[in-house]
């Protein structure tokens, strides 16, 4: 007889659904934020800040570092109380699979995979919007972190004019910290 995973069954309704409301980036792609990033990561690729050099490359001008894709659409944070909210930047909580797993006791979160795709490089002035959709939930798995589910969603980034500019597929393991197996954790190190 196959055991029925009732938690997994309750989660099925979220598959293919939005992870929350879509969002317009607080600011268009802009040079001050690019400079901040370039300095933070000490990335001296001239196409990000040197207009003269960038103009002679195939980009024809300044472009944003591709890995900033997600940074443009990060929500404006509410700093007060952020630790009490477990690090959630805003007080808005959507009814999505992550919140549902928290309610079921699978409160632990470990990011496992990130896949960024860039359709084109962004230029100053591009105004982005993003929307995330739940792609899949695994059957319940047992790992060194205990029991949980791999949850995968895809965020699509477009300009507000509707042009696709990139995607990110992101996978996390949502686990029940009470089921952590110290012996297996220790064996990893």
């Amino acid at each position, binding site marked *: 007889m196959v055991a029925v995973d009732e938690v997994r069954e309750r989660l099925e309704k979220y598959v293919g659904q939005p992870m929350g409301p879509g969002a317009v980036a607080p600011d268009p792609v802009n040079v001050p*934020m690019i400079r*901040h*990033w370039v*300095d*933070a*990561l*000490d*990335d*001296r*690729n*001239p*196409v990000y800040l040197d207009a003269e*050099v*960038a103009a002679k*490359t*195939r*980009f024809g001008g300044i472009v944003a*570092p*591709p*890995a*900033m894709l*997600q*940074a443009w659409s*990060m929500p404006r*944070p509410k*700093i007060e109380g*952020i*630790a009490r909210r477990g*690090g959630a*930047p805003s007080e808005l909580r959507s009814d999505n699979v992550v919140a549902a797993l928290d309610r079921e006791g699978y409160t*632990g979160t470990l*990011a*496992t*995979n*990130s*896949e*960024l*795709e*860039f359709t084109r*490089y962004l230029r100053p002035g591009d105004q982005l919007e993003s929307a995330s959709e739940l792609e899949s939930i695994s059957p319940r798995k047992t790992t060194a972190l205990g029991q949980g589910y791999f949850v995968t969603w895809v965020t699509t980034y477009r300009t507000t004019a509707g042009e696709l500019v990139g995607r990110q597929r992101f996978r996390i393991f949502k686990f029940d*910290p009470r089921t952590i197996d110290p012996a297996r954790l220790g064996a*990893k*190190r």
Partner: protein
Amino acid sequence: MIAVGDALPPFELEVTATVIVAGAIASRDFMPAHHDPVFARAQGAPDMFMNILTTNGYVARFVTDWAGPEAMLRSIAIRLGAPAIPGKPLRFSGQVAAVREAGDECVLEVAVRAANELGDHATGTVVLTLPRRA
């Protein structure tokens, strides 16, 4: 000529609290685990740790430092492992895994790894293109 098997020049990043915080704030990620060691430890992490946006940023930089300003990244796919925490340098290594021509571009797949003494922090593949005239 770039060929399969070519190694990228290795890069060692001295990971400090400043490096982690600078990346987190530049990516507008205010999660306390990326700037507050007390919060991070209470969550079960060994220390404050680098956010994923910053990891992706350093992987991109590692590849474009080698490939040059004409490089256009098409994708960065990584598997995440050991956290990047202060005091544990991250060693980046990479190797050309595939080369093909597509129209006026050369498409390269680069296998990358960033590891510290805890293990592999990020392993994966970066796909990029270069103009064939370059």
